[in-house]
């Protein structure tokens, strides 16, 4: 049982003009069959208008231990949100 088909990650664009979204993974021998399998496994109820597949091994993920250094710096930068600034009502819509 050594000749296992590689794992692919599947991304589907739904009906409403949204970005492709990760929906799951599957095994397939090559990209073409990965698309065919993704059609059968993940869009049996009209869930998509477009499919991307990528070999799971080709995806680089951030490490859980890097969560602090990567994401904490943005916590203190509340001025990036528009609600940080008080604009007087008299100014009108902005």
């Amino acid at each position, binding site marked *: *049982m*050594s*000749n*296992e*088909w590689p*794992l692919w990650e599947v991304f589907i664009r739904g009906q409403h003009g949204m970005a492709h979204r990760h929906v*799951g*993974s*599957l*095994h397939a*021998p*090559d990209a073409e*069959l990965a698309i065919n399998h993704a059609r*059968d*496994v993940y869009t*049996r*109820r009209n869930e998509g208008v477009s499919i991307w597949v990528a070999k799971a091994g080709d995806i680089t*993920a951030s*490490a*859980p231990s890097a969560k602090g250094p990567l994401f904490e710096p943005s916590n203190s930068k509340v001025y990036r949100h528009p609600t940080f600034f008080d604009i007087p009502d008299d100014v009108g819509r902005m």
Partner: protein
Amino acid sequence: MYAQEVKSTGKGVKSLDEMEPLERAFQEKVNADIKIEPKDWMPDGYRKTLIRQISQHAHSEIVGQLPEGAWITRAPTLERKAILIAKVQDEAGHGLYLYCAAETLGVSRDQMTEQLLSGKAKYSSIFNYPTLTWADIGAIGWLVDGAAIMNQVPLQRCSFGPYSRAMIRVCKEESFHQRQGYDIMMKLCAGTPAQKEIAQDALDRWWQPSLMMFGPSDAESVHSAQSMAWKIKQDTNDELRQKFVDQTVPQANYLGLSVPDPDLKWNNEKGGYDFGEIDWEEFFEVVSGNGPCNADRMAARRKAWSDGAWFRDGLMAHAHKKQARNVAAE
């Protein structure tokens, strides 16, 4: 349920104070309903319990195609046949979502297949009963998928992210399964006396095995406490079984069928039905391989795996060759 034989560490549940820092941080996340993702640190027992539970659940979906698949060629109308094909295809899909969820924990698809085919891994006892008439297809959708929904709805809130997400997909599709089954039963019960008779016969044969799907009684189930502390499991076996009985009896009444249990009685005080003792001896016999169809089911899976080997290998060889040609052309 779909993982009736899950064994966790067997030790008692540790308190937060008894835990090492990593385990404590893990348990605090679980307590705060933060999902655990594949790359996060987790106790070995948590990983092992999940691999066993998710792979057994996946095997059940795959083996579960067999009893219903047997009626595809004999469905009474073209429409019923198309519906049954779609249903059986869903079961294959559910198995695939679940295998992928288990693979994120570090077990390979081939390892899981090997464990199923060697008999090391179990699947739900329910699929070792035969489908003798068309009414059995109705009873399976109504009762077996009904029991499955009862179990899977709380699993959507499981602490392990990939399992929880797979369950959300499965639950969205499962309701179709139960309704198509009940629809078959309604049709039969509104039909000729002979049709109603096979509907009653199917209920008679599937009722007890469906109750067994929830697994041994809480008093016997030693693994519940740890799984519940880890939020792999949210309700006890007996709680889910009671809920299923309370929900299903009125549905049987609507069909004009009688539930095959002389001890079944509404209990006003508890606001639910009392029901008779389940034949646990039969349950353990079926789980350990001695049910009416265990040998057939395993033989069918082994044959599918070995008959398909040349095809899987051929496609892989083709993919390698194509890749080599592309590299040479660059």
